[in-house]
């Protein structure tokens, strides 16, 4: 029964692995719920600031902020949001695929690019790619705060303002539901202000102290809020993807155990049969 013992240890080790994946699945499920709550909590601010920026788009301030002016694109900046940890299915891989396609396209158009990465997976990927990374933020944990990302976003905005890059794109995962996460890329700067169609008459704010200062601080915050909501959403995606991945791992382990158990039983059965036939054979010889 040498084989049987080996199979028994194998079953034991698969069972242990299944225990771990099961635990990870449950942890991810509860973290996902909390991440979704945070997504909801961040929504009012994002909506309000989008509305205000939309109003500004339909009013006519005398000062045109650089973030609102389009210019010919020679170099773009990409803010890529990824996870810090693995074991979350194809979440990051799907994002990298999309990034590669986009980079290829830019390359063909002769557009240069550089990146800001949020999350260590993205950092490693772009590093291996040899892409220029001008800032990074990683190890934000499960509760990212807006202060964690301000620095990285500021680097991008500064290099936009100085004319080094001509557009900024944000790429991250969109939380559709627990089973589905979608990679989404959107343009951050120049700001595409959604015009409020309901406003029939044109009216403008009183800007205090002046439109320049107000627009400066407002647009900075608007972009930060967009990045922040995307980061929070990406955490929810990560947890959902991990939950699904770990669930399928646990299921697979269950199947494996069943199969191994079957082999073990067969082995045991044949050993017993052999022993009986040996005894019977021995008895017959006497």
């Amino acid at each position, binding site marked *: 029964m040498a084989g049987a013992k080996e199979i028994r240890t194998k079953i034991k080790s698969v069972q242990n692995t299944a225990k771990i994946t099961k635990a990870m699945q449950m942890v991810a499920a509860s973290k996902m719920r909390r991440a979704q709550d945070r997504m909801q909590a961040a929504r009012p601010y994002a909506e309000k600031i989008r509305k205000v920026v939309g109003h500004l788009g339909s009013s006519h301030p005398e000062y045109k902020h650089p973030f609102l002016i389009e210019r010919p694109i020679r170099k773009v900046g990409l803010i890529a949001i990824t996870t810090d940890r693995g074991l979350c299915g194809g979440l990051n891989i799907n994002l990298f695929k999309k990034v590669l396609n986009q980079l290829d396209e830019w390359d063909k158009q002769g557009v240069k690019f550089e990146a800001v990465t949020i999350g260590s997976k993205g*950092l490693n990927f772009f590093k291996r790619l040899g892409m220029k990374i*001008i800032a990074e933020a990683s190890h934000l944990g499960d509760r990212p705060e807006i202060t964690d990302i301000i*620095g990285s976003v500021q680097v991008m905005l*500064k290099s936009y303002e100085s004319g080094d890059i001509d557009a900024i794109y944000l790429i991250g995962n969109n939380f559709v539901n627990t089973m589905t996460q979608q990679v989404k890329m959107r343009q951050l700067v120049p700001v595409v202000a959604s015009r409020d169609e309901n406003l029939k008459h044109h009216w403008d704010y009183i800007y205090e*102290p002046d439109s320049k200062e107000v627009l400066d601080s407002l647009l900075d915050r608007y972009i930060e809020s967009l990045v922040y909501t995307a980061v929070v959403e990406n955490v929810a995606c990560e947890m959902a993807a991990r939950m699904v991945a770990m669930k399928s791992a646990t299921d697979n382990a269950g199947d494996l155990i069943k199969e191994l158990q079957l082999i073990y039983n067969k082995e045991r059965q044949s050993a017993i049969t052999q022993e009986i036939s040996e005894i019977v054979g021995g008895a017959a010889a006497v």
Partner: protein
Amino acid sequence: MAMTIHVDIVSAEEQIFSGLAEMVYAPAVMGEVGIAPRHTPLISPLKPGEVRLDLGNGKEEFFFISGGILEVQPHVVTILSDTAIRADDLDEAAAIEAKKRAEAALADQHSDIDIARARAEIAAAAAQIAAIQKLKIRR
């Protein structure tokens, strides 16, 4: 009943207050402002300080904000509050730190971009996944 104005106080991380008030006092950069219903549209950055809401019937609410933006429309006041103290030099410091982290992480970088190689690696990973799935079906 006295005239009221709808007030929303939100920060990037959560909603802080949403409801009606008779009067709103906020610390604008040019000095404290009081907003009554049907105020003319106004937009102004805020200093760190206290936002006071007069809810009527002698009831008041106080909120401390560390700066932000005040937007006033005739029937809605929106306060976009910051979660942290913001100043240009602080932002600058954060930016420099983010840059430094990237530079430290990239210390051993080789220069040219090799999209083809990365794509090949991803293709290999995808092929592996496909193979595993096929194996699974066969079982």
